[in-house]
């Protein structure tokens, strides 16, 4: 398992990208799967940086037999990102509602997505399969 703890600042997104790229390489992810894992992590982390009062973010990740997983933790107020996904539709033409777009992309990018709030810590956990079935690859 690998871990990265950073201040909740957009200037640290490059560090997050490097961390996830290394994790994807360790898991031998395809370039598409690696992109999806980076996108999900980027969106979850950016959402915390821009919309919560958390001052620090802890990212953990690991490679399992069938998947590469990431856990993003912060100590801000309880926020379940799945709430934003209810009734969410992609951008509609000409001024459609754009709130929650990042979380929508994160959710769509990964194969598993979960959230828990334990002991004052928000944890968003997600993963991509190391060898996704053809249907999933074709969709993206």
């Amino acid at each position, binding site marked *: 398992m690998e871990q990265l703890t950073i201040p909740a600042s957009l200037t640290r997104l*490059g560090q997050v990208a490097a961390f996830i790229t290394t994790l994807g390489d360790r898991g031998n992810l395809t*370039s598409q799967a690696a992109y999806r894992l980076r996108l999900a992590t980027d969106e979850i982390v950016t959402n915390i940086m821009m919309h919560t009062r958390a001052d620090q973010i802890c990212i953990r990740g690991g490679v399992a037999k069938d998947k590469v997983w990431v856990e993003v933790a912060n100590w801000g107020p309880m926020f379940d990102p799945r709430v934003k996904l209810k009734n969410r539709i*992609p*951008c509609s*033409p*000409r*001024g459609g509602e754009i709130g929650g*777009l990042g979380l929508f992309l994160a959710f769509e990018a990964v194969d598993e997505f979960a959230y828990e709030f334990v002991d004052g810590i928000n944890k968003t956990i997600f993963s991509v399969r190391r060898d996704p079935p053809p249907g999933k690859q074709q969709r*993206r």
Partner: protein
Amino acid sequence: MTFTASLSLDGDSAAISLEGELDASTAPKFHEKVAEAVENNVARLEIYAGRLTYISSAGLRSLLYAQQKMGTGSTIALIGATGPVASVIRTAGLDRSIRMSDR
């Protein structure tokens, strides 16, 4: 993180060329160029994305901003987006309102 956005104006048309990784930390550079194009009241905006290797929702918001500011009589074309970058744009549904082409 490396990202550049360059704008060229030609009459009532504008072109923005993107290169590198477009996330929330680099999106302000793109947004700035979009705003500059909009301020010049262009009727057509071409965005060249063939050298764009990564895009997140922050980049998509700049596209939505351009779409909203330019109005119904204008045209926005996204040119050269491939692979995962094009997939993200389609997943968000932006391909329904912004014309995408290979070149």
